[in-house]
């Protein structure tokens, strides 16, 4: 499966949030808007972090929020929320976070191709900063398609 398509519904730019939970819930709402998840998915992503710690902050400034496949996932989906002001997740190395990705996966069997695409994009160490600075959905889409060019 390729990276789920990003639309105006699944991208939110310059969001103002009080804390990491609000940031992750916004990513959940974007997945709901784009038809990938049911409303409870945002809370499931928050619960993963409450349960296991802030391991989803997998690179400096970037959180990859996700929960497990389940009834809250309607389709494979990706959402991007960039923050006007960074928030801390309590991660030992990679705080503060400026870009939150929300990932919904229907089945673990098929997700590795999409994750490989994410690696293609973010193995470029400039991609996170470029996303944080982006001001339009088109800019975000261009950065995220960088890996497949």
């Amino acid at each position, binding site marked *: 499966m390729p990276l789920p398509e990003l639309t105006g519904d699944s991208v939110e730019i310059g969001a103002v949030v009080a804390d990491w939970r609000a940031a992750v819930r916004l990513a959940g709402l974007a997945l709901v808007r784009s038809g990938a998840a049911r409303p409870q998915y945002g809370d499931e992503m928050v619960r993963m972090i409450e349960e*296991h710690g802030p391991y989803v902050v*997998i*690179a400096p400034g970037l959180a990859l929020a996700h929960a497990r496949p389940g009834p809250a996932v309607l389709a494979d989906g990706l959402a991007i929320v960039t923050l006007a002001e960074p928030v801390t997740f309590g991660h030992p190395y990679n705080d503060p976070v400026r870009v939150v990705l929300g990932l919904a*996966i229907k089945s673990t069997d098929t*997700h590795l191709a999409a*994750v490989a695409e994410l690696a293609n994009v973010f193995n470029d160490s400039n991609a996170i900063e470029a996303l944080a600075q982006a001001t339009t959905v088109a800019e975000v889409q261009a950065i995220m398609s960088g890996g497949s060019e």
Partner: protein
Amino acid sequence: MKIVAICGAGIGSSGILKVNAERVLKKLDIEADVTAVHLDSLEMARDAQVILTSAEFVEAIGKTFADVIVIENFFDTDELTTKLQASLGS
């Protein structure tokens, strides 16, 4: 050689570790089987030589014969290369 990448869900972060570890191992010309698993399937990691994970899961992984490598930046293939080379002695 068996390498296991561990995260809370078995998707997303451990998947990225798997993909990038495979890329690095290919460059180093090391043959290895890399599996992404979640914490609840830790028994899959029992016969692994190397476990790749983030700092949050070291305690949950507990005692193991495998070399547990903590990765800070999952997209930094240089970090992965250095740490895998140190662990595998290549």
